[in-house]
């Protein structure tokens, strides 16, 4: 029996069936989505290689590849593997995490504006970080901890306030709007009260920055995501059924309430990991699923293409953030929001023209 076979059902697009353990675990494969994801990932890796070569100390591509496989001079090894590699690979990995998180929340809320911020995570994380930076004057790990704490508490409060014998998507959105608005106001207040220098440092954290990434942090982020990403793919299998509404999902055997809670937790955890490491990098979670949906011409958001697109988006943004105005280094969040926005606008126009 073959591992991958053609589907017997006509889904209206090229579809394959992955068959494991003699049919005990099967997975429908959207071949176009797979192809697009593979191409996007390939481009992302190419961009990452370019990022690794360039900088104040130019290194040719073969040398970079050599360094990655441990065949380079000590100096090149240090520059490529210890200085540049953590930042560049974190850009790809965290972009993918944000893409998945965005896809989960857009599916969950059935709203193209859906993102982890819908349940107040980003606002809460910013509040936590602002309190640590401005009031407590804490270090990097304290800021990361404050952001995590703030974001998770906020998400929890929103979820509990929206709970009334179940969480309905619309009520979740409204409660999220309310809590986020209050926190944003509080953030503005903190920024106004602070000294200018402190406020600017806080604002730079607030747009997200990949400066100062180390191999150690790469390892930490990878360890967390190695658990979260498979969990996201596993939990999101009934995503399409839930998009059809709770009643339809239940009649198809999906426990809507538990699936939604699990998806929310994993989605928040993915964003939280990125936020703790690099601050709330804007727009990737919002744009990546929408861009991926248009690239794969699929009817809804999907995890794998969103992850690939997120990786490419943050990878390109990181490259530009370091090189566009060199030697001035922009926070990467500013670049993601600009190129993500421009590309998204172009995609919308192209889609409309046909």
């Amino acid at each position: 029996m073959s591992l991958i076979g053609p589907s017997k059902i006509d889904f209206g697009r090229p579809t394959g069936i992955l068959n494991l353990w003699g049919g005990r675990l099967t997975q429908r494969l959207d071949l176009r989505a797979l192809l697009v994801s593979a191409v996007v990932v390939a481009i992302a890796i190419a961009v990452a290689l370019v990022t690794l070569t360039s900088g104040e100390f130019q290194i040719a591509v073969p040398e970079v590849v050599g360094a990655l496989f441990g065949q380079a001079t000590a100096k090149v090894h240090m520059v490529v593997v210890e200085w540049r590699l953590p930042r560049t690979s974190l850009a790809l990995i965290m972009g993918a995490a944000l893409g998945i998180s965005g896809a989960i929340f857009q599916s969950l809320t059935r709203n193209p504006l859906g993102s982890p911020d819908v349940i107040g995570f980003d606002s809460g994380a910013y509040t936590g970080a602002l309190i640590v930076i401005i009031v407590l004057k804490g270090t990097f790990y304290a800021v990361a901890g404050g952001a995590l704490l703030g974001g998770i508490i906020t998400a929890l409060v929103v979820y509990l306030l929206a709970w009334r014998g179940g969480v309905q998507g619309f009520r979740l959105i409204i409660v999220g709007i309310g809590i986020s608005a209050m926190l944003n106001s509080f953030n503005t207040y903190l920024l106004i009260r602070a000294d200018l220098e402190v406020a600017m440092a806080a604002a730079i954290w607030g747009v997200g920055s990949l400066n100062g990434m180390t191999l150690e942090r790469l390892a930490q982020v990878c360890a967390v995501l190695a658990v979260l990403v498979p969990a996201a793919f596993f939990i999101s299998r009934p995503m399409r059924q839930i998009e059809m509404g709770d009643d339809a999902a239940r009649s198809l055997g999906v426990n809507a309430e538990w699936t939604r809670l699990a998806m929310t937790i994993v989605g928040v955890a993915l964003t939280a990991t990125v936020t703790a490491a690099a601050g709330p990098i804007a727009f990737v979670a919002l744009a990546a699923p929408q861009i991926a949906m248009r690239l794969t011409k699929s009817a809804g958001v999907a995890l794998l293409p969103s992850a690939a697109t997120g990786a490419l988006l943050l990878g390109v943004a990181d490259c530009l953030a370091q090189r566009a105005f060199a030697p001035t280094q922009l926070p990467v969040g500013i670049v993601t929001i600009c190129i993500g926005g421009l590309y998204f606008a172009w995609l919308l126009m192209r889609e409309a023209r046909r």
Partner: protein
Amino acid sequence: MTDAARDVAAREDDERVGLAATNAQRGFWLLIAIGVLVFVLLASIAIGSKDIPLPTVIDALFNYNDSDDHAIIMALRVPRTVLGLGVGIALGLSGALIQALTRNPLADPGILGVNAGASFFVTLAVGLFGFTSISSYIWFAFLGAILATVLVYAIGSVGRGAATPIRLTLAGVAISAVLSGVQSGLELLNPATFDAMRFWRAGSLTAPGYDNIVVAAPFLAIGLVLAIVATRPLNAIALGDDLAASLGANITRTRVTVVISVTLLAGAATAAAGPIVFIGLMIPHIARWLIGADQRWIAALTIVLSPVLLLSADIIGRVVMRPGELQVGIVTAFVGAPVLILLARRRKVSGL
């Protein structure tokens, strides 16, 4: 509550869309809201960081002499209240229109790029051209709001057919993102600009005298008229584009009218008072829950309730940190959000 009982309760809620079931009840709610608005207007004139006894306040209004107290009332508090009234109406009404047009509960007046455009141009004015006074911001903000919306509409309507709400929304998200990105870049590279913008962003009604009102008033008036014209066909559009067209509503014309109206209202309000988006987001939801899904009633109630929220927040901002003040944009969310959450929890919320 058992599952069955909850289902029954939910079904009853579904049938009765708003809290008010008849036009008499809707009128009753509107009258109450107007009463509250009058009270808040008077309170906004009577309450401030300086304690002025009520008889003196009344004297200042009807029997003006040049004393300090009278000057505070007529030159500061009355203009501020008028500005709050106009800005509140504009923000709320534009929010109601944009939510009805896009059928998206997350849509706020900023969705068409109004705030991003205004903020971007104010940043340019401060950062590149070195303007420092608030009164010179207003034209930049208004220009930015209009240009950004035109761009969003142009991108949203590329190709065959008119701009659909979903494409408008997404185009607005894209353009707002790019503008705010460039703006953050300018700010973070230039501390003086950052300093000015963090205060502008908080939003406030403290511009002295009638300058801002005079600039904003004509645009607010045109926007208001267009909004009222658009509310009836918006009811048809709520049923879906095909059904609306078969009922005789001109969809394209309605959309264009709404977009122009939102741009004028939100653009003028943002120019005059800074970006205070929460009112436009929240009040239409409240109005819909109180009064049902008819856009004409929603618009009417929104016009009354929005200044109530904005002015209450402004009054609270004046008294909580005496003698200092808290910007109205900061207080608004703290006054409004608990009400919104409470209402969202209290009943089965009606979607759009």
